[in-house]
């Protein structure tokens, strides 16, 4: 059962991703993107990362994608662009290069990742910890101890983004 659900979610994720790349209009691409992100959230649930799954839906698929949608609407980009996708030799080269990287990742890197993950004793799995403290608690502990500096500077990062966006979007004159 699990593997069936995973198969469906994975198919939607990959299909959505391909839809983003080959979507005929920005809106279509965006909707494919949301589908892909949503099914990714499902995969997170299957990986027991409930908190991230929620964040994924709320922040990623929700807020950020809406921002995209808003801009696409604002710029009135709904219609189709024939010359949007590069054709001919370019796309062939693109497939070649990305295929090469994909091939390397799939044939060399990820098998080793499999071995590596298999080498961990099951006891180390974070599931027990999650069962003990709840997922929020488990994430919060390093976030507010080791990574407190990073967390604070994430605040600065968001502030910078706001200032930058304001400075750019504000019409001068």
């Amino acid at each position, binding site marked *: 059962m699990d593997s069936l659900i995973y198969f469906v979610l*994975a198919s939607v994720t990959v299909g959505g991703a391909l839809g983003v790349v080959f979507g005929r209009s920005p809106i279509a691409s965006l909707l494919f993107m949301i589908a892909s992100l949503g099914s990714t959230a499902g995969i997170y649930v299957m990986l027991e990362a409930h908190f991230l799954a929620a964040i994924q839906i709320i922040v990623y698929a929700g807020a950020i994608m809406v921002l995209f949608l808003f801009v696409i609407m604002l710029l009135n980009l709904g219609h189709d662009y024939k*010359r949007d996708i590069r054709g001919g030799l370019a796309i062939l080269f693109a497939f070649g290069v990305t295929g090469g990287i994909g091939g390397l990742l799939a044939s060399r890197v990820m098998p080793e990742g499999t071995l590596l993950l*298999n080498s*961990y004793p099951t006891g180390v799995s974070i599931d027990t910890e999650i069962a003990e403290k709840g997922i929020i608690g488990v994430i919060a502990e390093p976030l507010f101890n080791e990574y407190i500096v990073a967390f604070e500077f994430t605040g600065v990062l968001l502030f910078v983004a706001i200032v930058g966006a304001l400075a*750019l979007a504000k019409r001068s004159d």
Partner: protein
Amino acid sequence: MLPTQVLFLSAVIFVVGTLGVIVRRNAIIMFLCIELQLNAVNMAFVALSRYVGIEGQLFVFFVMTVAAAEAAVGLAIIISIFRHYESVITDDFSFLRW
């Protein structure tokens, strides 16, 4: 085993995102493909965190924040260029070259 399968999935999504950046001319869709890449990274982190440790999920949290920040500035830049050229197709404004 699920995490390893997700690891493979993340590789696939990453490659698809990369492909998108190379073949699309529309700045917004290129940006969406970059978001796909980030999503692949997130997937890898989550899959790995299952055994390696909780920090992986923490990193996803940071990556999402950065993605949000990038989205804000990136879309502002796209709006800004749209004001000048009435287009977001990158070929329409490739004046800086050679």
